[in-house]
C-alpha cells in the first residue's frame, strides 16, 4: 500500500508504524485510539506486517509488555488515550528512566470527570514530567511521517528515550484526509532496523531496571535530562534526511508562521493550528502584524526557539486545550518561563479553550488576537464559554 490514499489520522499512524516495521505491538482498546490498533492487527493477520501483536488486559500491561520486548532489542509500539494513559502513568516514568525507546501514539482526549470521549490535551500535558519526548502533530500526513521519525529519534544513540506522539482525538484521529503513503523502500532507506547494546544478552548478561541509591540517583536523572535535551540537536538532521527521501519536512521543535516581523503571536499545539493560520492571514490583510507558532515538541521544550521566533513581538498568547487547575494552562507556564529569558519584555496571555472537545471558532481565535492588541488584562481566560461566568 503506497501512494495517495484518503485515510484518517489513526489509519495514517498505523501505516507509519507498519512502515517502521515495529516488531512487537501491545495495546488495549480505548476510544478514540482503537482504529490504530485495529488496523495494525489486520496488517499482522494479513501478513502485511511481520510483527507480534500482544492482546494485553490493560494499558498498564500494554506498556510493561512493550518494555519487556524492548529489553530484548526489539522495536515496539503501543497506543492509548486519556484514562488509559493515566492508568499506565507509573510505567511512563519506568520506561523513560530505563531508556527504552518505545513509540506510543496517544489520541488526546479529555480526562474524567466529567466524562468526555472528545479531545483536549489534559491527558498528555499532565504527564510532561514523566521523562518522555512529547510530539503533537497537526494533520494525518504529519502523523504518519512522525510515526516513522519517532523511531529515528527514540533510537538515536545519544537519545534512547521513549516518544509519545499526540494526535487530537476525533479531530485528527477520525478525520479523513488525503495522505501520501510512502513505499517500504523509502521507509527502509530512512530507518534502519533497531540496533542496541543496551539489552538483555546471553553472552554478556545484564541487570536491567535497577535501584540506584541517594549517592548516584540524581546523577542518573541528570543523564536522563541530558538525553532528552539531545533531541533538539538531532531533530533537524533527522528532518533533513527525512525530506531527502520523502520530500516533506516539518522543521524542528516548533513551526512558525509569518513570525518574521510579527507583533502579536499566538502559540498553539496540534490540529487547531490550521484555523489559527487562517486567522493570521485575515489579520495580515487587515494590517495587523499577526503571526503564529505551533509547538511540535513539548519535551524537550523549545525555549530557545521560542525566544528567537518572538524577537519582534510585543505580545504572545497561548491558545491551549488544558488547564492546570488552580494556576494556569501548562503550555502557558512553559512558554512564559521561556520568554522570561527573552532580551525584551513581552506581554503574555493564556487562552484556555477546546476543553472536552468544545469547538474553537474563528471568532474565538480572533478574540485572542484582539485581547493582545487591546492590551487587555493578562489574567487566564476561558474562551468560547456558552454561559455567563457569574461565579
Amino acid at each position, binding site marked *: 500500500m503506497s501512494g495517495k490514499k484518503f485515510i484518517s489520522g489513526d489509519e495514517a499512524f498505523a501505516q507509519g508504524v507498519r512502515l517502521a516495521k515495529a*516488531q*512487537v505491538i*501491545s495495546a488495549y482498546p480505548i476510544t478514540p485510539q482503537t482504529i490504530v490498533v485495529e488496523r495494525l492487527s489486520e496488517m499482522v493477520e494479513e501478513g502485511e506486517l511481520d*510483527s*507480534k501483536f*500482544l*492482546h*494485553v*488486559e*490493560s494499558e*498498564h*500491561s*500494554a506498556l*510493561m*509488555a*512493550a*518494555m*519487556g*520486548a*524492548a*529489553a*530484548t*532489542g*526489539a522495536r*515496539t509500539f503501543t497506543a492509548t488515550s486519556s484514562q488509559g494513559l493515566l492508568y499506565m502513568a*507509573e*510505567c511512563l516514568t*519506568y520506561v523513560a528512566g530505563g531508556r527504552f525507546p518505545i513509540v506510543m501514539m496517544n489520541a488526546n482526549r479529555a480526562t474524567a470527570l466529567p466524562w468526555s470521549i472528545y479531545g483536549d490535551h489534559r491527558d498528555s500535558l499532565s504527564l510532561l514530567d514523566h521523562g518522555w519526548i512529547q510530539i503533537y502533530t497537526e494533520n494525518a500526513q504529519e502523523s504518519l511521517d512522525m510515526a516513522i521519525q519517532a523511531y529515528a529519534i527514540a533510537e538515536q544513540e545519544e537519545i534512547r528515550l521513549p516518544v509519545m506522539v499526540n494526535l487530537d482525538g476525533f479531530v485528527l484521529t477520525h478525520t479523513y484526509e488525503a495522505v501520501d503513503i510512502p513505499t517500504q523502500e523509502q521507509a527502509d532507506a530512512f530507518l534502519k532496523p533497531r540496533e542496541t547494546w543496551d539489552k*538483555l*544478552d*546471553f553472552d554478556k*548478561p*545484564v*541487570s*536491567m*531496571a*535497577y*535501584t*540506584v*541509591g541517594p549517592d*548516584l540517583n540524581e546523577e542518573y536523572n541528570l543523564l536522563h535530562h541530558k538525553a532528552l535535551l539531545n533531541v533538539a540537536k538531532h531533530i533537524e538532521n533527522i528532518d533533513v534526511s527525512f525530506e531527502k527521501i520523502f520530500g516533506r519536512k516539518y522543521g524542528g521543535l516548533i513551526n512558525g508562521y509569518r513570525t518574521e516581523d510579527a507583533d502579536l503571536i499566538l502559540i498553539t499545539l496540534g490540529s487547531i493550528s490550521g484555523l489559527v493560520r487562517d486567522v493570521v492571514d485575515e489579520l495580515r490583510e487587515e494590517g495587523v502584524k499577526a503571526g503564529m507558532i505551533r509547538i511540535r515538541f513539548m519535551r524537550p521544550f523549545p525555549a530557545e526557539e521560542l525566544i528567537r521566533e518572538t524577537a519582534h513581538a510585543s505580545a504572545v498568547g497561548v491558545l491551549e486545550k488544558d488547564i492546570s487547575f488552580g494556576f494556569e494552562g501548562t503550555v502557558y507556564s512553559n512558554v512564559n518561563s521561556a520568554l522570561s529569558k527573552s532580551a525584551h519584555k513581552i506581554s503574555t496571555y493564556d487562552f484556555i479553550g477546546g476543553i472536552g472537545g468544545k469547538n474553537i471558532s474563528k471568532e474565538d481565535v480572533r478574540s485572542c488576537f484582539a485581547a493582545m492588541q487591546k492590551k487587555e488584562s493578562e489574567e487566564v481566560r476561558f474562551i468560547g464559554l456558552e454561559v455567563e461566568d457569574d461565579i
Partner: protein
Amino acid sequence: MTSESTERINAENITEDEFFFGHKACAGCGGSLAVRIALKVLGERTLLVEPAGCMSAVSFNYPQMSFSNNAIISAFAGTGAVLSGLKAGAEVMGWKDYHVLGIAGDGGTADIGLQALSGLIDRNDDVIYLCYDNEAYMNTGIQKSGLTPFGTSTTTTPAGKKGKGNLKHKKNLFEIVAAHDIPYAATASIGYIEDFANKIKRASEVRGTSFIHVLAPCPTGWGIDTSETVEVAREVVDNGLWYLAEYYDGEYHINRKPKEFKDIHSYIKRQGRFKHLDEEDIKEIIAQRDKTWKRLQQYSVGQ
C-alpha cells in the same frame, strides 16, 4: 503434558552454578531459596522478571547485582505483562534455547499482579510464573496480603485487645490459576525442595504458560528462628495446612496426601505471628483446612 520428566533433579545432578548469590535477603529467607533453586534448574539462559518486592530489593542495588543471568525488574503490577513482552521480543529476535521466568511474591501475584497474571495465562505465552508465598507484604514490613492466612498478626492486622489478626482465609490462588485451564500449575513448599525443583523442571518442559506457587516462610515476618524456615515449610505440608498438587491436562492431581495430618498445634505455637490464637481459632483453622482438602479431593484424579 502427561509424561514425567526423565531424570529427577537432586543434590547431585543439579548444576553447581549459583545464579542468585551474595544477595541481601534476611538470613534464613525461604523466598531466596526458592529463587536460587529455580534458577539452578533453569540455567544461565534464563530471562528473569521480578517486580518490586523483597527479591528485587535484595539483589538489584547498583552496582551490587546478585543475579548472574539476565534479569529485569518490572513495575509491581507488571510481572505477567513483562513476561509476555520478553517472550515476544525473544521470538522476534530469533533467540533459541532459553527460558523466560517471572518470580513474584504473594502480594505481587495474588493482589496487585493478579490482573496481569490472568492476562498472561489467557495469552498462554510459553513462560514460567513462580509465586513465592511468604504470606504477607514482607518487603514493606509485614502487611496483610490476599494470601495471608486466617489468624495472622501482621502490621495491618495486628492482634490486640479485640483483634484476632487477619480474619480472612488465604485466597485459593492455585485454583484461581487452574480455572484459566492453564497447561501446567503446581503448588510446592521450600521444605520439600526436590519436589519443587522437579516441578520447575516440569514447568520448563510444558508448552504454554506454567505456574508454580511455592510456600516460602519468612523468619522475620513469621516470628521463627532463621534456622527453622525449612522445618516449618515441611511441617505445614505434613499438617495439611498447605498441600502439594498439580494441575495439567485439565485435571487436578494431589501429589502427597498424608495418611494422617500432623497436629497443627506445634506449627501454630512456634510462630510469633500466631501466638495470640486460642483453641477456638485453631478449630477454625482446622475446619478450613479440612474444607480445602475435601474440595481438592473431590476434583482430583488419582494420587
